[in-house]
């Protein structure tokens, strides 16, 4: 137990992101309702963001906003130690990824509304039956 705990503490973020991702992926593949699949898609994407944010974390460091730098010119009087601040790059990447994911989510929701307008259902098996009903494609 004593040597297991440090191992868990050292890696648990990485393991939990894998679990979240598996939940999302499973929902995307196996769920029948299209909106449920969309939720799965979002969980999948947030899991990746969690992974990136975990990469950026540093022990004993603070948020990536330089302190006492409001003055501008005299900012570099104080020496900045890289070990004091969390890595900002993964945060930047993930801001972009969140934006992309919300854009995809919006478009997917619009598509779901369109599908419902046409077929009056969002269940995949029912949709497949309706598709057979409307006959061969043109």
């Amino acid at each position: 137990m004593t040597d297991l705990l440090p191992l868990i503490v050292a890696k648990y973020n990485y393991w939990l992101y894998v679990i979240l991702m598996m939940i999302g992926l499973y929902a995307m593949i196996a769920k029948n309702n299209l909106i449920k699949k969309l939720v799965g898609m979002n969980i999948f994407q947030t899991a990746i963001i969690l992974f990136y944010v975990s990469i950026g974390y540093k022990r004993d460091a603070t948020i990536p906003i330089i302190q006492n730098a409001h003055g501008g010119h005299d900012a570099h009087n104080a020496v900045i130690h890289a070990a004091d601040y969390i890595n900002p790059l993964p945060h930047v990447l993930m801001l972009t990824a969140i934006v992309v994911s919300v854009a995809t989510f919006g478009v997917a929701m619009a598509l779901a509304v369109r599908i419902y307008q046409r077929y009056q259902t969002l269940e995949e098996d029912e949709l497949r039956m309706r598709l057979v009903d409307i006959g061969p494609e043109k």
Partner: protein
Amino acid sequence: MKFLGFIVVCLTGTLLLYGTGEFPDWGDPDSPASIHLSNYYIEKAVEETQVPNLVTAVLADYRGFDTMFETAVVFCAGLACFLLLRDFREKKERFYRHTPTRVILHVKDSKKVLKTGKEFEHMDKDWVPSDLIIRTVCRILIPFIQIYALYVVAHGDFSPGGGFQGGVIFGSSLILLAISYDLKTLVRRIKEKVLGIYAALGVLIYVGIGAICMAMGGNFLDYSKLVPIVPGDPHHIRALGMLGVEIGVGIAVTAAMVIIYINIVSEGKHDEGL
């Protein structure tokens, strides 16, 4: 399908867990990810850009090119929702409420339009009770939310936030207006045309600033070349460039969010919704 999904998920999970085996410990300050580029940004960004929020500095300057496309993605999503759902045909039936008696009228003839005003009130088909408390509270809240949004955009250089977050907050204040009153109130105040123009204009501000830098002889988005045309302290030119870019992002995101919401909630009819 469930079984297949389960197998795929298990395979992916195993692969990913196998990959985590060689990961550095969580929060290790000496992991490769935290020393190579990260140290450069932390140590040099303030000196080079005069922006203390490193995330903003990297987002809008070092990797400003990414952010431009990110804004284009949002614009594209708004346009896609418009293209997919917008339906210019008028609805045939209408509902009115006679204000003094609270009687609801259902007008099936599309030509017959009652004048709304003191006597009659326009209503949605899926009836939403007009709640005085919600309306009043939202009416008080919305201006404050909007001022906060502007603060988030403008203060993105110094504190968490920036164009995207501010734009989303501003957009949600408009959405709140639509939810607490009704969709017509929002659509009447902010025309679809205005939203469409603003969405394109926001991204255009971003790309335009980049193109001006190019015209001034620098590389694309190289804000330091803007010194001759921007008044103010030349040391802060990069911070000012970022501010301009963030304002563009904010405008584009606000408009895109409202477009997406209106089109989804009214199925593209722009008449009634939540």
